[in-house]
């Protein structure tokens, strides 16, 4: 556990970077410090490993003031990842990863074999071990940065905007990887970002800092989106916070309609019966393995000859689907909004269609979680 008690950082020119910060970072959790530039989030992070010293107050790890330890010794027990990875250009990937173990006096061989394990942990091929940092892509460099931070198995990991210098696709991949690692390792992670979406995705809890280094709110992500403490936090999390908050509610409880599915090979006459019974203007056509092919409109069925195969009619594309067991309400809503039929297709893990849900039913489900923010939320990305 890391605690900030009345911590202030005032520079000689009078600028206040962090103003009377009280914050507890629980062990084994990811706490995100988020704020615009000038909010003191990086300064606060760097006080944990004494890269910056507070002018007032106290930073403690498990109750012990960090100032009780010599900085180099303290820092070897705290992993650190920065924006441009900060890899040593003159050392190979393996030697970069082995940095802290070597500083701790491990033998070359033991440090080297540890580096091998970590390469695998962060999803890099063993042949990367003898390359130099400039031979890697930005995303690979960041992975090496994370591996280097974890090399001596420190209980604490500090991450200062680690993914903001890579493109959005790579960033999303690195975020997923971090979540996977954290599920496995359960480190005490302090993560700094200016990107509220990243904070919501990564954090078990989020601390929002306002310019001038004052803490505005600390809360679980779904609480922060549901109930911003003031106008500043509300503006910072963005006016689509309602939609984003849906990420915390699972799609698995949505009422899926399977009676609107027809299979390739069924005739237009059969399909008309299905549509009449379901009282639905759109039917979902699937192939023989129940994979979605597209939507067919009731009007198109009415105009078709009785014996026509439904798969041969003009089908409307189904857009993208949501996976019922793992996706959130946000994914389902997105699928419905993008679908020309106004309906989202829910699929099983193997991609077979389970049914469809219309925007009206989605609306009802969203309404339900809106009034019930305590019991409906899942711990993480449902």
């Amino acid at each position, binding site marked *: 556990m890391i605690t900030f008690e009345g911590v202030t950082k005032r520079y000689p020119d009078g600028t206040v970077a962090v103003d009377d910060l009280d914050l507890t970072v629980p062990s084994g959790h990811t706490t995100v410090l988020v704020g615009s530039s000038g909010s003191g989030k990086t300064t606060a992070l760097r006080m944990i490993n004494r890269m910056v010293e507070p002018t007032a107050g106290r930073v403690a790890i498990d109750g012990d003031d960090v100032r009780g330890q010599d*900085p180099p010794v303290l820092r070897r027990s705290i992993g650190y990842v920065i924006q441009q990875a*900060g890899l*040593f250009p003159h050392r190979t990937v393996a030697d970069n990863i082995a940095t802290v173990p070597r500083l701790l006096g491990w033998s070359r061989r033991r440090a080297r074999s540890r580096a091998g394990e970590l390469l695998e942990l962060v999803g890099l091929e063993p042949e990367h071990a003898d390359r130099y940092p400039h031979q890697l892509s930005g995303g690979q460099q960041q992975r090496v940065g994370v591996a280097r931070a974890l090399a001596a198995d420190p209980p604490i990991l500090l991450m200062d905007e680690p993914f903001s210098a890579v493109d959005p696709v790579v960033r999303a991949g690195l975020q997923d990887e971090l979540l996977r690692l954290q599920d496995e390792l359960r480190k005490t992670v302090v993560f700094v970002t200016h990107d509220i979406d990243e904070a919501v995705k990564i954090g078990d809890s989020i601390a929002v800092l306002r310019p001038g280094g004052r803490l505005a709110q600390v809360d679980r992500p779904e609480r922060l989106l549901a109930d911003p403490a003031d106008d500043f936090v509300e503006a910072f999390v963005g006016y689509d916070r309602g939609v984003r908050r849906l990420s915390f509610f699972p799609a698995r409880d949505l009422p899926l309609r399977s009676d609107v599915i027809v299979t390739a090979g069924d005739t237009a006459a059969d399909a008309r019966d299905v549509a009449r019974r379901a009282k639905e203007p759109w039917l979902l056509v699937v192939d023989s393995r129940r994979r979605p092919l597209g939507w067919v409109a009731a009007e198109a069925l009415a105009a078709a000859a009785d014996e026509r195969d439904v798969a041969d009619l003009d089908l409307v594309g189904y857009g993208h689907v949501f996976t019922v067991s793992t996706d959130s309400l946000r994914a389902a809503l997105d699928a419905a909004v993008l679908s020309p039929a106004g309906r989202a297709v829910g699929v099983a893990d193997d991609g077979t269609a389970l049914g469809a849900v219309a925007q009206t039913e989605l609306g009802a489900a969203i309404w339900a979680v809106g009034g019930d923010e305590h019991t409906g939320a899942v711990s993480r990305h449902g």
Partner: protein
Amino acid sequence: MADPAHEVWAAAAPLWGWAVESARWGWQNLDDPVGPLLAEHVLLSYASVLIGLVLAVPLGVLSVRYRVVYPPVLSGVNALYAIPSLALFFLLLPYTAFSPWTAIIPLALYTLAILVPNVVDGLNQVPDHVRQAAAAMGFSPLRRLLQVELPVAVPVIIAGLRVAAVATISMVSVASLVGLGGLGGVILTYGFARNFAAPVVVGITLSVALAFATDGLLVLAQRALTPWARDRGPARRGGRGLAVRRRATAAARAGEKGAL
């Protein structure tokens, strides 16, 4: 009608004879004085550059750590460079007599004007995120300097060494005026003093060849020391550009000095 090719040959023939005569003289006098004076030239120039490097690294490190130190240090090494070498050799004579130090001390001081700025530039082009990361990993300041900052600065420092080495090899000859000039002695004592061309040609040729060979050795040393810098992408060009620019200015200054 005159054949142009024939005319060129006719003009070149004495030159050719001259070259042959010089080579013969050099070969016949290899044991004395050419060989020993070449060895002296190598000793004087290499020792000067090495001592210069040993002085330049701490001066450069201090200049980077305490920025206020750099302007006076730079002015100081430039002022030293401005002192005519001949004057400095004679000034030292009462103290060091005709020992090699009379040549080595001034020459080593001259290299500082090239090497100190290169050490400073080399250390300054270590990316800030690398420096920060090293501190955050738990390197003590001294260890960070020795294991991260100086190794990353090596390409720029070697670029400076190349200029300093070539400049020093050309300047050693001036010390022959106090009897310590290596190949300068061949030129002065055996050539000009006796109004005899062959030793002059031999002295110049060997001096240039030594400069080339030394430069080649330094290039090889750089390749061996910095395998990581061999095929760097465009991301690091900034640092290299700086090194190249520094070499160019250093070369221009070395040129002026050589003319003194």
